[in-house]
């Protein structure tokens, strides 16, 4: 619901309530005032008639019999309401009547009960008018509020809509702060100012992160390269080669350096993917079947060593995908390597590639971890493994970078693990 509609709703509820209370009060007030007025007139007439009688005059005859009723029998004294038939309009009309005792004629004459009447019909008309006017004003007010809000929504909220549109279109990777204008309305001006500051901070943070990632790659790999080269040179020393313990020490140190370097490269790649730091200009048409064949050829010794059978089905010809060649290679390499690593000796790896998807399925022991955590970083299936467990996380990041879907499925029959990449 829109903000304006919400406020208007409460406003309308309040207005309608107030109008109802006001109408009731006005009705009661007017009713009371009109009745008092009628009663006062009736009392005045009574006094007038008593004065006439006191001076010995006869009661005047009125042209309308219902206005003055004389009865010889007793009646209830004081004010009361009654309905009389209006012969003209053929409807019952409410009257207020005042009954009192009087001895017209001479003071010793017979007692008569005089009833004076006055029509109340005007008061009902007045009430009708009052209610009509009140309801009319209420309706006008409601229509006015709705119209005003529409106009406000268009005019006053324009800067807000503009801000919203600017935020929706905002892309951090353009390295530009938002640069929103300062509208005349204070609240919107403050909002825009806060958003501008926020985006400036974002751009600065993003920039420093990007620089850090770039520098980290260089600054860390260089010392690692030095350590590795020195250790390798040290390994060449003839003195060392005769001492098995020393060469093993050295070889372990070398292995550690390589693991660290590989871990670092993987993390840097993940960070760059998360920050979208691969220029779109570097993307070229890539034929995945070709990359796949190259990768499989490279991994052949590993397949052989584990006596794995790899089948590759590609629905040729395949249209090229526009990808960064390094990322395409990394994606396939990680998926293939995963299928080889988590296989059992003599197992199978089946690769299926068509226009819509790439499917790599492999035999292998059942998973001990929750498949939902499959793509998490540092998720190892075997705690003793040297691998940092980043391969699938990298594959997933590359997929999401290009908007590909990636999913994992496990079939109990044949203990088959399947990773499927959906291109569209």
């Amino acid at each position, binding site marked *: 619901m829109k903000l304006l509609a919400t406020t208007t709703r409460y406003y309308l509820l309040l207005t309608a309530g107030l109008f109802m209370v006001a109408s009731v009060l006005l009705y009661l007030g007017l009713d009371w005032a009109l009745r008092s007025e009628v009663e006062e007139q009736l009392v005045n007439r009574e006094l007038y008639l008593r004065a006439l009688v006191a001076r010995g005059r006869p009661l005047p005859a009125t042209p309308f019999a219902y206005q003055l009723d004389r009865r010889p029998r007793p009646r209830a004294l004081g004010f009361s309401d009654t309905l009389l038939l209006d012969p003209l309009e053929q409807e019952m009309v409410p009257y207020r009547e005042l009954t009192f005792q009087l001895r017209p004629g001479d003071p010793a004459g017979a007692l008569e009960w005089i009833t004076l009447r006055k029509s109340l019909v005007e008061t009902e008309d007045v009430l009708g008018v009052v209610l009509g006017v009140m309801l009319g004003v209420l309706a006008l007010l409601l229509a006015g509020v709705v119209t005003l809000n529409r106009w406000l929504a268009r005019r006053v909220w324009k800067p807000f809509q503009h801000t919203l549109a600017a935020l929706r279109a905002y892309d951090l990777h353009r390295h530009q702060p938002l640069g929103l204008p300062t509208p005349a309305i204070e609240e919107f001006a403050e909002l825009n100012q806060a958003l501008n500051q926020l985006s400036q901070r974002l751009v600065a943070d993003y920039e420093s992160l990007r620089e850090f990632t*770039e520098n980290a*790659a*260089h600054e860390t*790999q*260089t010392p*690692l*390269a*030095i*350590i*590795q*080269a*020195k250790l*390798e*040179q040290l*390994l*060449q020393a003839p003195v060392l*080669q005769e001492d*098995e313990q020393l*060469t*093993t020490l*050295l*070889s372990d140190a*070398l*292995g550690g*350096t*390589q*693991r660290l*370097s*590989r871990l670092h*490269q993987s993390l*840097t*790649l993940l960070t*760059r993917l998360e920050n979208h730091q*691969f*220029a779109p200009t*570097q993307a070229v048409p890539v034929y995945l079947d070709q990359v796949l064949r190259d*990768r499989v050829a*490279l*991994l*052949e*010794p*590993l397949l*052989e*060593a584990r006596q794995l059978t790899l089948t590759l089905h590609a629905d040729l010809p395949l249209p090229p995908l526009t990808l*960064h*060649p*390094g*990322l395409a290679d*990394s994606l396939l*390499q990680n998926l293939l*390597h995963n299928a*080889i*690593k988590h296989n059992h000796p003599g197992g199978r790896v089946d690769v299926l590639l068509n226009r819509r998807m790439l499917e790599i399925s492999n035999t292998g022991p059942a998973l001990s971890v929750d498949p939902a955590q499959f793509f998490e970083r540092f998720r190892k299936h075997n705690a003793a*493994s*040297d*691998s940092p467990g980043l391969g699938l996380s990298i594959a997933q990041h590359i997929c999401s970078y290009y908007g590909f879907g990636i999913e994992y499925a496990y079939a109990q029959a044949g203990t088959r693990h399947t990773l499927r990449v959906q291109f569209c």
Partner: protein
Amino acid sequence: MKLLLVEDEASLRRTLVDALRQGGYVVEVAADFAQAYEKIKLYQYDAVLVDLTLPDGDGLDLVRALKSDGSAAGVLVITARDGLDDRVQGLDLGADDYLVKPFHLSELNARLRALLRRRQFGGQHHIVFRDLLVWPEQKEVLVKGEPLILTRKEYDLLLYLLANPGRVLTKEAVAEHLCGDQVDAADSFDFIYSHMKNLRKKLQEKGADDYIRTLYGVGYKLSTD
């Protein structure tokens, strides 16, 4: 063979120079862009090894300069930047090969050998090692004049050993060379072992000396004595 090594990191430069000289090359060094630029303008090299990140310039500009001069030198790019980008750009500019830091010295040797073979002799070059004769272009191996039939990986392995005579090659280096980068150390040793075993068996069947030494737990070495 005369090489120019462009590397700003003094410590790494010394080690690389040592390793390259042990491999029989004449090595000149440049520590920054300006020195390197001057040297490639003044002298001819068989190969130039360029580190891309230099304090006073971009190594890619050196590659550009070499190519625009029509230099015959092979260019091997060494990069510590995230390999994925420079790989593409360096090769686009005409570099012959690339290595991402950190790399194995034995891998550097192998790449350099292959590069020089392609550049200098148009592939018409043979490698002689004791009773072995290898024609890399034809992928032909002769033991005492007798042809030796090898699988592709066994042949790659042999060539890798021949590029590093007398050097200790770690299992990791061999695995990476055969399977591309990022092979997990944990699962790569058994296959090297079996390939190496097959290669030695085939060599011995042809009556070759057993010059491949195993350093238990560490790696292998092509013995020169």
